[in-house]
């Protein structure tokens, strides 16, 4: 446990099938909260707090969208303790998964079903579920969404995630598994995030949409970056089990001059393929609108 933003509440609410026998404190590992510019990369230790990131001048200068995202996450108090590593590795906020005393032993905990499929799924995925193994030869699907505040920004910036065992491209880092929201293996720890400084980090916009101005996890968040050749990267959070790449929109925009009509088309393209439930169909409209507006604001 580092900042405890995700795990502490989960433990207090006793949401897991088994309470962990041991919890290892990694918060105090020296050097893992550094933020530095080195070799054309912004390097952020996994233990850097969201508040540190939000007010860091190096990040503000070359990756301002990340500062913005970190500064809007959670609440002022929690930003001082919660870490970038925790924000990226956090488990879903699905209210079935989070219901106390493991009331719903869902597939993400190795259970038999995703309760949101037939239940109240207003905050769940509009791009379908993600299948994963809960046991050998047993595949299950979860429709909970990834609501990491920082994930979309880091993906569009082309970040790389360094672990105790390897380096992973940001867009390959997120996954769905039993008690897992990443590709990290057992015992593997995220140690550093490296952001190449360049057009994608500097020409980047971040937008979060939440019901309240503080505390809330984003219902939808998105990041868009572009280079001078007209190549766009668009990723959305809160709409799928992992950060969702709006590839259709990216393709549509490639090399084109922005206009209100094109922005609208791109927004529509970003939502193409959505398969919402009745209760979360509003997210489709939000995707269209937010992508359109952010493109026009770039």
């Amino acid at each position, binding site marked *: 446990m580092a900042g405890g933003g995700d795990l502490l509440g989960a433990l207090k609410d006793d949401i897991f099938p088994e309470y962990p026998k041991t919890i290892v404190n990694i918060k105090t590992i020296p050097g893992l909260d550094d933020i530095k510019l080195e070799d054309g990369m912004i390097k952020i230790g996994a233990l850097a707090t969201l508040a540190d990131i939000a007010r860091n001048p190096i990040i503000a200068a070359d990756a301002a969208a990340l500062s913005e995202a970190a500064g809007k996450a959670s609440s002022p108090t929690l930003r001082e303790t919660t870490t970038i590593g925790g924000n990226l590795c956090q488990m879903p906020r699905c209210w*079935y998964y989070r219901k*106390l005393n493991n009331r719903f032993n869902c597939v993400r905990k190795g259970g038999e079903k995703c309760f949101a499929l037939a239940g109240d799924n207003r905050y769940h995925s509009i791009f379908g579920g993600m299948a994963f193994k809960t046991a050998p030869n047993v595949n299950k699907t979860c429709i909970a969404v990834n609501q990491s505040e920082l994930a979309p920004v880091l993906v569009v910036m082309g970040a790389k995630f360094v672990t105790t065992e390897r380096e992973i491209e940001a867009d390959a880092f997120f996954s769905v598994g039993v008690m897992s929201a990443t590709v990290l293996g057992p015992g593997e720890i995220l140690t550093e995030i490296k952001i190449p400084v360049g057009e994608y980090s500097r020409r980047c916009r971040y937008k979060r949409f939440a*019901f*309240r101005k503080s505390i809330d996890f984003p219902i939808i968040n998105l990041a868009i970056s572009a280079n001078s050749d007209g190549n766009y990267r668009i990723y959305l959070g809160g709409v799928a089990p992992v950060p969702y790449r709006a590839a259709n929109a990216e393709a549509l925009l490639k090399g084109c001059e922005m206009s209100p009509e094109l922005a609208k088309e791109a927004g529509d393209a970003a939502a193409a393929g959505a398969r919402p439930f009745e209760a979360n169909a509003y997210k489709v409209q939000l995707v269209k609108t937010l992508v359109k507006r952010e493109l026009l604001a770039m």
Partner: protein
Amino acid sequence: MPDYSGANGLREDFKIVGKPNIPGLTSRALATGVAMFGADFTAPDMLYAKILRSPYAHAKVLSIDISDAMAIEGVVDVVLWNDPVFDDLGPLMFKGKRPAYLMNEAHQEGAEVGAVVVAESEALCQEALLALKVEWEVLPFIVDIQKGRDPDLPAIRGPEWDESDTYGPSPMTAEGHAWMATHYPEDPRKIGNVGWTTKVEGNMDEGQEQADFILEYDVNVHDVVSLLPNPQASLAWWTDSMYKPGETLRIEGAVGRRKAISALYKLPDDNVIQEGLFQGGKYCDWGLRMSQEITPLLSKRVGRPVRCCNTREENFDMCVNERYAHVQIGVTKDGLITSVEEDSIIDHGTPGSSEMTVYDRDWTGYYTLKCENITQRYTVVDSNRGFMHTCGQFVPYGWDMTTVGLYLIAEKLGKDPTDIARLNLHGPDSQKDTRPVPSFEACLEAGKKLMNWEWHPSGTKRLPDGRLHGASFRYQMCPRHAFLPYFCKLEYRGGVVHFPTQGPVAGWFGTECFVMIAAEELGVAYEDICVDYDYRAEHTDEAGGSDGVTGHGWIVKECANILKKKILESAAKAAQLTVNRFGPMEFPKPDSPLKGYGADELDIADGNVIVKSDPSKSVPLAQATSETITADYGGNSPKSAWATEFGRKLDTMNTSWCEVAVDDETGEVEILKYGVVADPGKVIRRTSLESQIDQVVYFTQGCQLLEEYVLDPETGVKLNGNMLDYRRPTTLDVPVVDKEILELRSGDGAYGASGIAHNLANSHLIITAIHNATGVWVDPPATPDRMLKALGKC
């Protein structure tokens, strides 16, 4: 009616009453953390208790094997529902008739059921609960009250919850109005999960014949939670008292309910000690939770202090219950309402829930209208949604049905809703009175100025940033409850006026108001009155709600004047003395400046006893008499128009105004301006009054834009019982409320004051402004998902 009958009710000169920034007596304790709430108390050798909670919306505990739990080291006791220890308990407060104190049937997810564990720590309690082998029988449940009307559904309340005796004549006010009714004798008997009640007044046929058109609309309201900010907790132990014969119970945490505890444990009140004062803010929620009641029972069994504290999730009690109203109003071409017909489906909650605003149909907004032809038909559905203690503070009264109706008439006729309201509002004395209500007129005009009011039809105005603009207006009475008889005692002792009160401190600063009134009447400074917090004092800060403070304040005012009279009589007598006596000894006494004057020629001002005709002749109060003088006064304050006529008489009024911007592409609603012009009659403590307005707008905004109680349709389990998923507005979300306070002195409490708060709370002011912006209705809370759906965007 102004305060004619009481002492100095028409006083013009106020030195203390109405002043802003009078310090709160307990503010420092609250701000520094010195204040202790129920959860803060500890005792040496204390044990902890936790109650088993149902994971099902409706289930019965068939059996519990406690052997594994009892085998855990540190687990001291497990008490099951069928233990005879519960048979000895006395009556319960605000929980209806329960078949047993701790039942083996849970009627909502999270309900206390079946067993209580006692252990050396809370963690061990939790472990013990998990180790209980509970055999559950899962039962049918209803969390959708629309579907719950289905006659084929099995009854979710057993015969032990027989409600047939509630079909009786309802209590009547002195004016002959029924109130607090559950059923009427003529109402059809309940079938399955559904009860009905109907009230018809006036001549509906005539009303509908007079109408030029009928407007039909729905006002749907969801339930919101109490969410008391402090965890409900208690700590109790039994002692041998030096002072009281028999057993003495010490209990902390059941603040303000010492007598309820003494009744439950069949003890004389004097044998229950409770020194804690603080219970945190609460809004018309008077019920104790089991965690506040059960610790004495457990402590007696284990012979050690026992503490029991609810978790945050366990604090998510239902506060306002769901209601779906369909209203038809007959309206003339000028906009005058001639008939009102309402059909509502209302959540009855779980068994034992308060029926205060479920069946009774009298506290509605309709009685502020000239129209006397009113039919209200209620269909009341049992559910497993939640237990409602004693709340239902605004929505079920139906005040918002009138707001929406007046707005719709204005929309249809192309008129300003304030004009439609003025046309339909009856006069001060009755529904037949056609005179204007001065307080309403003053609030209306001030409100228009405050808001720069310019009405526009729905969907016709866009702001420069492209969002849609909407505005709305609402009026109601500034109410005063004044149901209760109140009691006040003041004591002049050692040169100081003492004001003994038991508190509790629940957030409305009533004691401060009472001290201000007493100081004003006694002619002393606010700081010169010593408040003695004492749980044994008869006076309580509770006053039938915060707006009851002004009725209670009226009693304090009378009491202060009695004390003052006695002090002056004593001072006049003391002034005649020529010697001071100490036992057998006598010492010459210099002439008092008051010598030769009778009590009626004296007064108290600025802490001095003065000669009225020559104020230069004065003696400090503390030196004017050395006697100990007490005064007490009890009884009912003058009749409250609101609490006896429910709107058929109008004295103090308020208006609320709201402007919103709606982003029709994202469904976001922003409150641009929220204005309140209130005439509470007379301001007692301005800081409290303004804070109450802020609080009620906070409540109102939460209810209309964010808050919602989400139950899983498949299991009936509450999904958002936490501060993250149950969205109360944060400080960044709450708009600044523009306020203007008028003082027309026409209320019936102290100095012509009435109250504030309750009737400012509403479910549809913002919703109406949203309609004005967009032309569509959305059921609250108007979250972006609902907005986009209403706008046809998804």
